[in-house]
């Protein structure tokens, strides 16, 4: 849309073809980008082969380039919707009703969609509660959320492109490209149930764009690295991904509220998602237990260029949960302690005491039905075993995993996303620097992401049980200083 807006403003007439359900989004974006009367032609997804649709649409498309402008289309002006600071005055009971209101959206078959919440009950953001939340930071309430250092935002798969930002740039919350003050972030933090001591983490989360992505952010997933996890009582041990811990649950939830409130997400109206994700629905937030790292392995904060004693937040995209081969924790112990059990048979090390390379078992055929990298969350014992086996750094595991994902071009061509990733095979293959079409069918390329560091991540949790959590996606992206928001 910014491209079309630029063309129209420079005097080149345009028309956009959109699918039926995208109409609201196109009309909305045309306002945000300053060409509210952009001409668009609505197409159907259900035309076999597109032939019938092309017959139907060709003339209207050409007419849109030649039909003289009407009075509305010739108008210029300003669009400046105003939001008031105090949204509601009344008793708490009345406020409960107000903040939990919904509207029925035709685009989702008139199902109710929350006006100010993520669909769950919220704490009412009274002026007193917001003031209390603001005691969690030294930043002024009216300060705009800006980048605290230069940032390179990572692209996501085939559908989102990366971009660079500079320190001081105002953070835009998607899909409405809105900005926010420290106080507005505090309002959402109150609503999510956060405590004031969590607030620097929430502000770092806001600096990261708050899980709003390109507008289809889904609320996002986040990880904290550094000593703050202990200060605010994040659970880094058993059930760290489960219920019960207020910090993990409420901070993670803020991303969904940012998306709805700061970003203006309204399904089928301001953005179009597909089906959402049960992994990030409700917020995915966890923290690293750096005390459990084997000697030589860096914590995430250090991996991202910060110091060991600095607290940082990383935003990432968690994909499918529980990828890789399954095993009971006891089977893992049998492998390493005595060389017995299923994994020992698989690795052909029966009767030989470990350390053995468990990753060979875990990742067997991992990329047969998925693409891109993975994040592995190890308990200290598995991390130590992998270190003893020979992986003296996390990076060495990232490289091992990435290399394991290589497959011949002829197999890679049969994957679903590659027409997008390779731009219809017209782009450059990154490991060779050659055009895709120059490569032989037997040339080996990675199905597991563009590079080891960007596609893979190892995190440590504190747990005696030798089970590991694993999910597709993650890797490493920009880190945001939590300390900068204290």
């Amino acid at each position, binding site marked *: 849309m910014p*491209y*079309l807006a630029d063309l*129209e*403003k*420079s*005097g*080149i*007439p*345009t*028309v*956009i*073809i*959109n699918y039926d359900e*995208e109409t609201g*989004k196109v009309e909305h*974006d045309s306002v*945000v*980008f*300053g*060409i*509210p*009367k952009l001409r668009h032609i609505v*197409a159907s997804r259900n035309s076999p082969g*597109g032939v019938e649709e*092309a*017959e139907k649409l060709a003339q209207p498309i*050409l007419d849109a*380039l*030649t*039909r*003289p*402008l009407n009075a509305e*289309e010739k*108008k*210029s002006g*300003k669009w*400046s919707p105003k*939001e*008031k*600071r*105090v949204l509601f005055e009344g*008793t*708490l009971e009345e*406020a409960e009703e107000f*903040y939990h209101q919904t509207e029925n959206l035709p685009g989702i078959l008139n199902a109710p969609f929350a006006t*100010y919440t993520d669909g769950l009950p919220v704490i009412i*953001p009274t*002026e007193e509660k917001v003031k209390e939340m603001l005691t969690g930071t030294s930043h002024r309430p009216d300060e705009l959320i800006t980048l605290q250092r230069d940032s390179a935002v990572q692209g996501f798969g085939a559908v989102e492109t990366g971009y660079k930002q500079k320190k001081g740039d105002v953070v835009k919350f998607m899909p*409405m490209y*809105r900005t*926010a003050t420290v106080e507005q972030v505090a*309002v*959402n933090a109150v609503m999510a149930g956060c405590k004031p001591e969590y607030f620097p983490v929430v502000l770092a989360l806001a600096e990261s764009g708050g899980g709003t992505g390109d507008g289809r952010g889904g609320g996002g997933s986040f990880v904290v690295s550094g000593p703050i996890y202990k200060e605010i009582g994040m659970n880094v041990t058993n059930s760290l991904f489960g219920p019960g811990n207020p910090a993990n649950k409420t901070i993670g939830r803020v991303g969904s*509220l940012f998306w709805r*409130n*700061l*970003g*203006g997400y309204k399904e089928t109206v301001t953005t179009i998602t597909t089906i959402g994700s049960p992994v990030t629905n409700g917020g995915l937030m966890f923290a690293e237990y750096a005390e459990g790292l084997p000697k030589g392995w860096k914590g995430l904060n250090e991996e991202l260029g910060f110091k060991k004693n600095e607290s940082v937040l990383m935003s990432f995209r968690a994909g499918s949960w529980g990828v890789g081969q399954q095993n009971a924790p006891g089977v893992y112990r049998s492998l390493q302690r005595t060389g017995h059990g299923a994994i020992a048979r698989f690795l052909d090390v029966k009767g030989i005491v470990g350390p053995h390379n468990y990753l060979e078992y875990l990742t067997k055929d991992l990329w047969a039905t998925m693409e891109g990298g993975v994040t592995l969350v190890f308990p200290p014992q598995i991390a130590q075993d992998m270190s003893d086996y020979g992986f003296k750094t996390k990076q060495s595991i990232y490289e091992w995993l990435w290399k394991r994902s290589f497959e011949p071009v002829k197999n890679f061509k049969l994957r679903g996303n590659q027409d997008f990733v390779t*731009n*219809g095979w017209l782009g450059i293959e990154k490991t060779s620097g050659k055009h895709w079409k120059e490569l032989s069918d037997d040339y080996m390329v990675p199905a597991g992401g563009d590079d080891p560091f960007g596609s893979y991540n190892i995190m440590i949790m504190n747990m005696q049980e030798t089970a590991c959590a694993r999910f597709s996606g993650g890797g490493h992206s920009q880190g945001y200083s939590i300390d900068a928001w204290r």
Partner: protein
Amino acid sequence: MAVTKEKVYKCLNPVGNQEPVETFPLAPRLKSLAGKTVHLSICGEADIWVPLEKKFKTEYPDINWTVHKRFHIVPMELTEEERKTTDAVILGVCW
């Protein structure tokens, strides 16, 4: 019996700030497309484009058609040089 009034609270707004946007008129339309250069910016889902591109090029030979094709949803933009010789743009199928 004394009537107590329930406390009234001021409750704050969680919605972000929409920065003001200057809105512009559309570019003037063309009187006719004959002899003009019309650019097809093909991106995102290409299904409709296969017959549409063919139809345009076959049935409107008096228009000079140029094409940028990209499978990504973000379109491949015209260069500054290309803009100088382009009279109109058709983009799709995405936003």
